[in-house]
């Protein structure tokens, strides 16, 4: 434990903690929307397609965040458009964008001359190398998303729950669905920095699943997901340091253990109640 506490004096560890705090908040809001609307697969498409943007940005010598954000937003809004038109099989369209993005990413990273960070850090993230500028971007997007949810909570959930009725009732449903597609894309992209393409969706789904063991209200799932996200990431960082294992994987492991333990306790309590 003492060696863990001594870590707090290092900037890289302070940054990692700050990143977990911010990403847990952001993923709690966006993840609750994703899980409620059952668009986890769409979010997977957005996540993987963004790799195309990362590859092209590296090749052109630009900031990979902006490349990824551009690709993610284009993918998110295209899928929203495809599903609103209903002419193409939506799941196939997602799979195409998903693999095309990955393919472009691999091609451009391969073609980039000189030094490129290794593929593993894109795929699995590196929360311990998050810098000041990453934190600023995370903070700005988290604050903006929180503000959006506070001001437009009603139209956001109503456009997701029953778009047809909401449209009849005068809510600009298309605006809110596209705006949310952009926010989902941005949230995924900033979180990829810490968790990587393959692991990132865990933050958007596991804390929500744990929260939903306690409540079935959109409003309450968000704060509970923040709490579970924090506990999972802090304990994940702790065991990552203790056993010297990759931090992203450790965080997911802890988030899942947390879910299983709580689910187990609930099942046991219910069985005892039935016996009485």
């Amino acid at each position, binding site marked *: 434990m003492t060696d863990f506490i001594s870590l707090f004096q290092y900037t890289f560890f302070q940054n990692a903690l700050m990143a977990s705090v911010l990403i847990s908040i952001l993923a709690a809001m966006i993840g*609750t929307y994703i899980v*409620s609307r*059952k668009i986890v697969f769409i979010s997977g498409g957005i996540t993987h397609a963004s790799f195309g943007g990362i590859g092209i940005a590296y090749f052109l010598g630009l900031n990979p965040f902006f490349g990824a954000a551009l690709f993610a937003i284009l993918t998110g809004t295209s899928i929203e458009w495809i599903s609103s038109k209903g*002419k193409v099989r939506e799941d196939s369209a997602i799979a195409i964008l998903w693999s095309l993005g990955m393919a472009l990413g691999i091609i451009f990273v391969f073609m980039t001359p000189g030094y490129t960070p290794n593929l593993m850090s894109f795929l699995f993230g590196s929360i311990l190398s998050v810098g000041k500028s990453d934190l600023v971007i995370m903070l700005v997007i988290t604050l903006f998303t929180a503000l959006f949810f506070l*001001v*437009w*909570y*009603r*139209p956001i*959930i*109503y456009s*997701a*729950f*029953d778009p*047809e*009725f*909401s*449209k*009849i*009732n*005068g809510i600009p449903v298309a605006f809110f669905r596209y705006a949310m597609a952009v926010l989902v894309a941005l949230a995924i992209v900033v979180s990829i920095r810490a968790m990587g393409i393959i692991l990132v969706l865990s933050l958007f789904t596991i804390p929500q699943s744990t929260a*939903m063991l306690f*409540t*079935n*209200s*959109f409003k309450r*799932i968000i704060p509970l997901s923040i709490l579970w996200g924090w506990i999972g990431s802090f304990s994940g960082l702790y065991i990552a340091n203790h056993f010297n294992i990759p931090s992203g994987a450790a965080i997911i492991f802890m988030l899942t253990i947390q879910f299983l333990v709580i689910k187990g306790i609930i099942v046991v309590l219910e069985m005892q109640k039935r016996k009485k």
Partner: protein
Amino acid sequence: MSKLLARLENVTAGYNGEPVLKGVSLEIRENDFIGIIGPNGGGKTTMLKVLLGILEPFRGNVDFPTGKINIGYLPQASQIDRSFPISVKEVVEAGLKPDRAWSHHLSKSQKDAAHKLLKEAGMERYYKKPIGELSGGQLQKVLLCRAIVSNPALLVLDEPNTYVDKHFESELHQWLKKLNEKMAIVLVSHDVGTIPSLVKSIACVNGTLHYHPSNQLTTELLKVYDCPIDLITHGHVPHRVLKNH
């Protein structure tokens, strides 16, 4: 004659360039209670979508002679995702429009109106419950509360009888009769067994529309209208036509 609320004029509409409705006209007046019957795929829901303004017709138009009216809508129950984490209270409040255009927050009096309506519907103890805990009939009640909470001039119901038991069905019919004193109602159903006794007039939609200004259905009428219907009951004495015609 009572005030004309809405009018469909020679409407042709459908999906992906394929018309489902062909040249349909219908007038809806104050205090009307129109039952829309017809086979599945005949265009009943398509017509509602045009009336509600969520589907642009290929040809023809929809107008509201007294100005834009407030329409309450009860969608088919199958359209509702019952696992969505939303409470009964939130669903009913979805039927309210905020007083101020720039804000999406409701006033206290609006929230009280939603609460009062649920109380009247006997659903008060489910007020804060998620919709996933409701039975089919209870969910329909909540959705009907959402449709009428803003006191619409016209109430549009799409197949309100599916997924509900007989007990709820009669309760629903009582409720609709009472609501009809305050608002016009258009009710779509493929179940012609119970509709005729409830409504004041009937329209049969099967690509085209045939309006019948009373609630009496005769076999000859149906033959003319080309409405393939299996069973008819109406009036005080049950009168059944069991063969397809």
